[in-house]
């Protein structure tokens, strides 16, 4: 049986007006993300994958086309509505962790739980990513991988339905990258959060339930992956 959809996008086109030139980042893209799914979005830089993710996550608005979150059509022109949407439903993880340097790991997570509706305690979120021991450390005292796991804990602490990750391992070495991916997998398995991971690293693709390839602003292929690769087998 097909799971219900979390995102549905129809006819998404995004054109960046750069003054003298116009850059078409998305060309008439249709896309869905299902509940509990771990999706890997693959593509070279400039293929439009980040643009797609940003529009789905309410960080950017399409030039044309519509986005539905569950049954609700997103009013992508309304800044306040998008803020509310990000606040309660979507978690983000970026390549550069974007932690608040003046706050400890726990406080970085608390930043989100203080404004969310039904959050998990910060300590629980950090335990989920294996950072229980480093809970009172400041970002400057944490390694890159640890910082990224704090970022993941911060993203999942509000119990979002979906987690959007843009090159989460892009700045990490293989071993640390694996730890981060394991944390994502655990979130997906234990909380049932749908996850979309953007990467240009094809090696990661095997961990997803579904692999979508993008090129030149279009979806080039969309495949199911019945056999998820074990993360220990991933290498780059």
């Amino acid at each position, binding site marked *: 049986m097909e799971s219900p959809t979390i995102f549905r996008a129809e006819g998404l086109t995004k054109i960046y007006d750069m003054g003298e030139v116009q850059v078409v980042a998305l060309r008439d893209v249709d896309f869905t993300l299902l509940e509990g799914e771990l999706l890997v979005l693959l593509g070279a830089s400039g293929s439009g994958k980040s643009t797609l993710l940003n529009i789905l996550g309410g960080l950017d608005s399409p030039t044309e086309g519509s986005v539905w979150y569950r049954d609700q059509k997103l009013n992508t022109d309304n800044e306040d509505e998008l803020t509310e949407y990000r606040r*309660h439903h979507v978690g983000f993880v970026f390549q*550069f962790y974007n932690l608040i340097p003046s706050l400890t790991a726990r406080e970085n997570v*608390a930043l989100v739980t203080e404004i969310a509706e039904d959050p998990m305690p910060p300590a629980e979120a950090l335990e989920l990513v294996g950072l229980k021991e480093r809970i009172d450390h*400041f970002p400057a005292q944490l390694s890159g991988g640890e910082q990224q796991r704090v970022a993941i804990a911060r993203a999942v602490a509000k119990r979002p339905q979906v987690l959007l990750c843009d090159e989460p391992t892009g700045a990490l070495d293989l071993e640390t990258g694996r730890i981060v991916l394991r944390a994502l997998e655990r979130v997906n398995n234990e909380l049932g959060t749908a996850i979309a991971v953007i990467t240009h690293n094809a090696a990661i693709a095997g961990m997803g339930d579904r692999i979508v390839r993008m090129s030149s602003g279009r979806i080039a292929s969309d495949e199911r992956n019945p056999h998820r690769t074990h993360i220990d087998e991933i290498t780059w």
Partner: protein
Amino acid sequence: MRALRKKLGRDLWHNRGQVLSIAAVVATAIMTVLSMRGTYESLVVARDDFYQESAFPHIWANLERAPESVRGRLEAIDGVSAVDTRIRFMANLQLDNRDVPATGLFSSVDPDVRSLGQLVLRSGRLPGIRERDRVVVNEKFAEANELEEGDAFGGIINGQMRRLQVVGIAISPEYMYPLAPGSIFPDNETFGLVWMGRETLAAESDMEGAFNEVALQLQGSAQEEAVIDELDRVLKPYGGLGGYGRAEQISHQFLEGELTQNRNTGTLIPAVFLAVVAFLLNIVLRRLVDTQRQEIAVLKAFGYTNRDVGWFYLRFALLAVFIGTVAGIGFGVWFGNVMVEMYKEFFVFPDLQYRFGFDLVMIAVVISILSAAIGALGGVRSATGLPPAEAMRPKSPAHFRPGIFERMGFEEWLSSTARMVLRNIERQPVKSILSALGVAFSVSVLVLGMFMFDAIEYMMDLQFNKVQREDISVVFERPLPESVEIELEHMPAVTRAEVYRAVPVRLIHGHLEKEAGITGRRLDDELQRIIDEDGRPIRLPPDGLVLSRYLADQLGLKHPGPIRAEILEGSRPERTVQVVDIVDDFLGASAYMELEGLHRLAGGVRSVNGANLKLAPGTRDAVMSELARKPSVSGVSSPRKMYEIFRQQMDEGFLLGVFFLVFFSSIIALAVIYNGARIALSERGRELASLRVLGFSKQEVAVLLFSEQALITLVAIPIGWLLGYWMSWAMVNAFVTESYRIPFIVDAGTFTFSAAATIVAAVISSLVVRRRLNRYDLISVLKTRD
């Protein structure tokens, strides 16, 4: 290096808000130097020239009457280089176009003798010594009453109405601030200086071959005190009222007060402003170097030397200062001219010009450049000290630790966002403290300025609504019996008359002595009262003397007790008198006694010298004119009218004054808070973007960004209050003169206003930065490395 020059231009443009805010502070500093110090120097030069040219005396003394033969003995006093004897008296004037009489201070003049404090003629000529009814008047009086050469006005001299014709208009170095005796601000309509030929004046006032005022000039080495002692000794038999030096000469004293104030303001204010400039340049350049780490690395990798890189950032600072300097010189010269014109309204100089001193400009420019260099030092050093390889890497993340509130156990109470704010402030304590001090200074200048307005208001209100409640006061030409009171009360419009006696005395306590006048009043007098600093009336004791605190201090008298009083009239008895109360008042150096007690102390006939009158409404002008025509009256004045003039001037000038004050004081607050917020945005744009992604609204993020500045402002306000309170107190202590003391009144309104104006400045600065925050592109910020 052309590429670097282009980069400099673009960096300046990119940071124009910060550059301009710093330039504005520099401009204010330079403007203050050029206007205040410039005015100070212009006034000093003009005054010294005038004093020099007119042979301004060093010592004056008034006396009853001495024959001209005494002159030789005065000339013989050791240290005296020149002696000038004069005849001087007050008389009523009747101007054709005025309903109200004016008072004239008549002085003798001799066109053939080079006198001390010589007049400078603005037009016309001096009257000949035997020329009848021809006079010279002072310029301000002529202007205020539209008198020109050839015009005439009435003068009641020795009981006779004379028609006096103006033959010349002049200014006197002894009346650069033309103040009627006993007055605190000039009223040129009703007070005029009138000079008449010596022999004519002598004949009119029964002073042939005699004088009642003397002025001395001293040799360079002479001791002023010793000369005054000897002068008093010589004049004692002739009713000498005690000699005094320039420090007690009213016109000199007022001018000196202005000069001191200009010199201090013109030094202190720019010093603080330039310190703020150094601080702002320091934080702005450090941040600029931080954001340009990689550019610096590339420049160095391409072979630019440390000197090139350092010079680049130094030039950034110098250009910001240069813009401010040019603007400051322009505004300073303009404002200096405005100030000098303003001084010409009050003070009279033969040739007062705003002098645009090149040396002053040079000093201002050099000091600005120095402050720029000091401010830039930190940023320049961090740019030159950066090894290229390290500069290529992003700066390592800043280290934080729990703030002091959390360590004190308040952790539970603070939200994560509150902790961010507190830790950011604590991580850069010096910057936070200096920012707070800068804002505090803005607050303190407002407190000081508003205090000055309040103090003057209070002083005037006290004087004219509580102390002097009479409608008019009358000075008699010569002592009259007390029964004159009944006569005055019988005048139709007079509802109450209270006579008083004024006796000149020399008060002596230990080795200290001071000339003063004792005013004798009745116990049930209501029109004039003794009022203490809190505005409460003090009952006149039936026996003994009440002294102004100022007078008591001059005599070294801390507590009530006995002192000696040498009466300077009649048979000049010297007696012991009990001081029973010392009162903190603000105007004049007064001594009061019950009238009977004064009669006993002074001896002689039981006479009075003047009266205070309360009138039926609307009769003032008519009564004044009627009284002025009486031969027994030498002066009629209306404190009420003076108060009305004061109120009018105050109401006209107040708003403009407050506007300048707020504008001037807010510049620092604006610049400090703007740059603080702007740098915070640049440093933490990434954090704020992260928060937006996490679902914080624009409003919440803005609150977070500005909380730090808000907190600094809130901490700064009470510090500024304290500083302003202290500065006001220092001002009170710096201006203790015989004429006036400033009441120390800093009320809640002043504190509220200074805080409110500073908060408004902070909000305006924040709104400017907020516009930039709103334009921030979330995604691009997050996609870049730190």
